């Protein structure tokens, strides 16, 4: 069917990129006058939708730092890789970043499973990972710095607000079936019961990732909410499943005034991809809102819009987490005078950096940071109006006090404990062999 010419041509076409790639694979040029920063966010696959923005944020922050003259007299160099939403690939890429590119720190991961996958590698090679997303807690690694919210910095304040200000009596805990919603709901269930909520007044529902047919579940929520008591939905529904969920809520006539939904995974960026009409009035709890009016935030938003060259792009909570994390890292490296991981890890604890929304974030000995908690209502322009906020920053708690098995456990990476999983009853550091 094909003549020889086209065959030749095709061979060349086929081999050229492979050959080029092979050369690059085996000959990494080590420019010693730069400090390398790894960016480990999925740029393809299911998570690209959330993580691509964080890659751009990192590039912007690094760019900015270089304009200020770099770090320790050297330029920073971003090493971007694509773990393609594939969990084992996250581990492989982390190893690549640490051993082949010799990066000084990695900023990355979004899902819990990707962090869990990377964890053994980072610990083995003594790297530094900044993890920018709200997560379930129950973890504190020597090598990971958690700049997103722990459950006590997001879920508990949100429930308090619903209970005290909106007088909610009946609760639907709806989530995607994975570890973050499971933990959060477990903590919330314990918390609600401790506050005297009857078991009958709590409905828990789990759905798979990307669940798209919400008809029956929303009908159930509607029935549950029609029992005459004020009902609210606490949603830990993840990513893509949110759009059909809110659409169905809107269509079945569940309005924010009847049954408000407070979400922990819906931010400005998710809203920019949703027709916000049916969502107006529903709530979200975060540590940052784009709408918060401070000069720092305005400057950050302007910087982002200029960098990405799109005046319509929005900022969100994980971006602020990277902003804080990156600047804390810069401060710690300056303090330590080196990028040596042990020195930087030590120097990071206690570093303070101002939040974009006011107040100061501090890296705590448990490798979590202190953050303000904000609760906002969704507006039809895809922004939040803050309806409640803590009057001071809340310290991130790695091990929840509301779960019996983790109540006695604390994390403290300063001497003399130096442990991420220290049992205050048995006085033992368990679980970790490093």
């Amino acid at each position, binding site marked *: 069917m*094909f003549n020889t010419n*086209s*065959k030749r041509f*095709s*061979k060349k*076409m*086929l081999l050229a*990129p*492979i050959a080029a*790639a*092979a050369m*690059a*694979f085996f000959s990494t040029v080590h420019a010693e006058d730069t400090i390398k920063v790894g960016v480990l966010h999925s*740029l*393809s696959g299911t998570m690209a939708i959330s993580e691509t923005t964080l890659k751009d944020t990192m590039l912007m922050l690094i760019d900015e730092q270089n304009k200020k003259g770099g770090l320790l007299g050297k330029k920073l160099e971003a090493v*971007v*890789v*694509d*773990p*393609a939403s*594939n*969990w*084992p*690939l996250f*581990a*492989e*890429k982390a*190893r*690549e970043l640490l*051993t*082949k590119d010799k990066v000084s720190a990695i900023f990355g991961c979004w899902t*819990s*499973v990707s962090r*869990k*996958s990377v*964890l*053994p*590698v980072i610990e*083995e090679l003594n790297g530094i990972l900044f993890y920018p997303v709200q997560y379930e807690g*129950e*973890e504190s690694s020597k090598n990971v710095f958690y700049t997103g919210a722990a459950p006590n910095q997001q879920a508990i304040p949100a429930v308090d607000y619903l209970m005290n200000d909106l007088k909610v009596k009946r609760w639907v805990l709806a989530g995607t*079936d*994975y*570890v973050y919603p*499971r*933990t959060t709901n*477990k903590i919330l269930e314990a918390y609600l019961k401790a506050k005297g909520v009857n078991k009958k007044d709590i409905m828990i529902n*789990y759905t*798979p*990732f990307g669940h798209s047919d919400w008809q029956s579940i929303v009908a159930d929520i509607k029935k549950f909410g029609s029992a005459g008591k004020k009902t609210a939905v606490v949603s830990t529904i993840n990513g893509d499943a949110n759009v059909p969920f809110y659409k169905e809520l809107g269509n079945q006539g569940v309005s924010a005034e009847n049954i408000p939904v407070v979400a922990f995974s819906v931010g400005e960026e998710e809203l920019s991809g949703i027709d916000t009409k049916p969502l107006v009035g529903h709530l979200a709890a975060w540590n940052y809102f784009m709408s918060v009016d401070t000069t720092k935030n305005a400057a950050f938003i302007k910087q982002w819009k200029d960098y990405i060259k799109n005046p319509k792009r929005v900022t969100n909570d994980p971006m602020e987490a990277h902003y804080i994390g990156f600047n804390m890292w810069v401060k710690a490296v300056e303090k330590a005078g080196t990028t040596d991981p042990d020195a930087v890890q030590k120097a990071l604890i206690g570093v303070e950096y101002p939040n974009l929304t006011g107040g100061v974030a501090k890296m705590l000995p448990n490798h979590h940071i202190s953050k303000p908690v904000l609760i906002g209502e969704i507006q039809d322009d895809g922004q939040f109006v803050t309806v409640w906020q803590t009057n001071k920053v809340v310290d991130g708690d790695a091990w929840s006090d509301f779960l019996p*098995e*983790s109540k006695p456990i604390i994390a403290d990476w300063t001497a003399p404990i130096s442990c991420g*999983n220290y*049992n205050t009853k048995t006085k033992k550091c*368990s*679980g*970790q*062999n490093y």
Partner: protein
Amino acid sequence: MKLLTLASQDKTRATVLSVLAAITIIIPLCNVLTPADSALHFSAYTVSVIGKYLTFALLGLSLDLVWGYCGILALGHGAFFALGGYAMGMYLMRQIGTRGVYGDPLLPDFMVFLNWKELPWFWYGFDNFAFAMLMVLLVPGTLAFVFGWLAFRSRVTGVYLSIITQALTYALLLAFFRNEMGFGGNNGLTDFKDILGFNIQSEGVRSMLFFLSGVALIGAFLLCSWITSTKLGRVVTAIRDQESRVRFLGYRVEMFKLWVFTFAAMLAGVAGALYVPQVGIINPSEFSPLNSLEIVIWVAMGGRGTLYGAIIGAVVVNYSKTVLTGLLPDAWLYILGGLFIVVTLLLPDGIVGLLQRKLKEQAA
């Protein structure tokens, strides 16, 4: 499809075998013998990446036996790989013992977390290495046997068979995602510490796993080559080419198919079991229909029905992925997608076909 001449096949086979053997012996040997800063020392990264390719090659090989020789386009072959991986993962989880986050001597962390009080029955025995290894073979094997027995007996063929194998892996994907199943849900099994008492992250264990993957691949390759050259192998190939005719000749077609399908599933299980300790995690996404589809693509890319083609395809595709995801994070899907199209259009016999033609041109 053009069958390659036996002579050249032998030559290529010999080359592939010797390259494999060299890699299997030299890399671990260098790493054990030379110090870490030596030029001959391979980094842990290289070892783990190539080790992963070897297990993928084994997986591709097993699919080639089913697809290339028996003509069954299985779109759910990844399920057997994942099951083997889970069996291994369960063994590794039990080895953690009290070193888990919550320090429970018996229950893995995720069960403590879900408030489970005792170990589910299907986790029993997995603390025993021999039992776990048996399960690596038996679980995928049994599933393949039952599934195959049902399907082949009722003469489900062609696309119908392909799609129900896809349904199989999809159903397993959804099932393993469920936290109630007792396999760790979306996070899967991770945080492994020891294997047979040795630290899983140590250099020696990593080299050993690498070596075992190489040996398993070479062994499976030889075994498959032998099978395809026996009378059984020829009947199987005949089934691929003209199923009804073979049946009319009096052969019990479904038994041959069943045998090959089950055997290949076990091989895939072995590949999974070797894969998990090297990458350090097993999670339900291994069951995803897209993963299984990708295996088919390795085989097609390398050249199906040749065995070594599957090995070459698996290595080439995965190697390009490794390189391109680092080098061109924004554009690698264009290249990979383009590659698939170009290969199908211009190289109907895959890379092996291309090499073969080149050899012939040189000879001429």
